[in-house]
């Protein structure tokens, strides 16, 4: 479909997603792979990859929990209070991964779910109208999941 001589660059973000899915994070090996496959210099691959917050430059937990700290979430009891609750419950600070490798806790900006705030994401799934109680239920469900 490409007939405008745009080269391989336009595939870079998609390739980084694939590599991240395969390796779990964008390890030096993953960057090399993408670089080799698309014939783009590793430095250029790193330059792009490091710009975007969904590309991970270090290993991630099985479940990456992203809690929104946007204004609308904060106004209805989300943000810091839910982040604090999760942090205590999981025993990790935002940005950290639990020792058993199960959970990574992240603080993120708006998830475009302001009408059903507070919101968070676990991997690719959006969870809305969260409370400490529904967070407990969610963690229990994840705990029972295959690992």
């Amino acid at each position, binding site marked *: *479909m490409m*007939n*405008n*001589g*745009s080269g*391989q*660059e*336009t*595939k*870079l*973000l*998609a390739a*980084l*997603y694939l590599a991240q899915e395969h390796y779990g994070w964008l390890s030096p090996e993953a960057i090399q792979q993408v670089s080799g496959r698309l014939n*783009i210099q590793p430095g250029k691959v790193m*330059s*792009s990859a490091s*710009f*975007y*917050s*969904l*590309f991970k430059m270090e290993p991630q937990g099985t479940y990456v929990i992203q809690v929104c*700290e*946007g*204004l*609308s979430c*904060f*106004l*209805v*009891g989300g*943000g*810091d*209070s839910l982040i604090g609750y999760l942090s205590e419950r999981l025993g990790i600070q935002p940005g950290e991964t639990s020792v058993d490798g199960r959970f990574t806790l992240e603080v*993120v*900006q*708006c*998830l*475009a*779910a*302001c*009408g*059903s*705030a507070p919101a968070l*994401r676990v991997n*690719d*799934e*959006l969870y809305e109208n969260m409370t400490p109680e529904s967070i407990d239920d969610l963690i229990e469900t994840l705990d029972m999941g295959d690992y």
Partner: protein
Amino acid sequence: MDRDVSRSGIAFQPVLTKNINRKGSERIQIYLESGGYQAAREALTMEPDEVIEQVKCSGLRGRGGAGFPTGMKWGFMPRDANTQKILVVNTDEGEPGTFKDREIIEQDPHQVIEGVLIAAYAVGATRAYVYIRGEFFLGVKRWIKAIADAYEFGFLGSDIQGSGFNLDMSIHRGAGAYICGEETAMLESLEGKRGTPRLKPPYPATKGLFGLPTLIQNIETLSCIPHIIHNGPEWFSKIGTKESAGPKIFSVSGNVNNPGNFELPMGISLEELIGDYAGGVPDGKKLKAVIPGGVSTPILPARALDVRMSFEDLAAAGSALGTGAVIVIDETKCMVEVTRRISKFFAHESCGFCTPCRIGSRRIFETLDRMENGEGRLGDIDLLLDLVEGIDGHTFCPMGSALVNPVRSAIQHFRAEFEHHITHKTCLVPNKTPV
């Protein structure tokens, strides 16, 4: 989507969201049953210039925040039939407070594809790229299915509906960067680069994706197109106000009983939108402030609620319609904390390319963070205003200067709260939500 028009004096039938509550609304069969793709068939029998003329006459202005007249933007695309042209579909909704585009793409992707088809035909673009926010996983799935179905039913591909017009469409996931909603940053990102805005001119209509003439449009804007073609530009321009035609999806969030997306005519009063549609402020609390168009727009105090939600009325009231994302703040919230949060967003999302935005947003956040934590210093308000002055109009792209709006307006309307934070080291707000 919640709406109760009975309380409003306006008898308004939803246009853009009419299918959203139908079961399976994302499927092409449901879209076709509800009259979908008729407008595209009609458009394909018209001359492209005629389509552009209809969009111009409708008065449609872009729904992504800037409000630029859509038909005029289409008119900027070169006429040369031998040059390949591109249409980019901006699905990178990230303005805090805004959640309308996500609902459209998840619930009614074919309405957008039909809009894309008509827009592409009008400007002669044969290639469409959908740039979707990386976080919109359900949206990505629905888009992929919708594009495949549109090919199968002959609304994408070669010789669409026997018209001789060709259009290919593919989807590209962003990867978490607010700045990529800025159209030239989006082009950089589509080319696989860091999402840093480009110098303008040249504008994308001259030199866009891969150096080719490119039209970039927001999801809600494109959703309006089939209805303009099918019902006529006069019908569209009669909805709303003189300078803000058509229906608009308002996202209401924050301290309201009934948050959500509400499709209403442009020009609905902000008071009615919050009080009647979004159910007012909960727990008998008073409304203190409203951000009427997403965090990039100036904050309005409660006394300014009697304003119509249109480009011209909100500009006259000292704010802006932006994306139509209304964030309601009740009396128990501290405005220093609200402003701190907004500044943190801008500091986090600065692409880092230009100094006023990169350093300015960081300094503003640090100053507000200090005040919020009881370490404010005398002169901090002047420092904030000075930083704002240094940013305003001095950034490489409009997103950098956007932070100026909430900070300046918060100090203007709620200066006492900032002063109290500095002199008393605590909040003026008694029942402040614990942080």
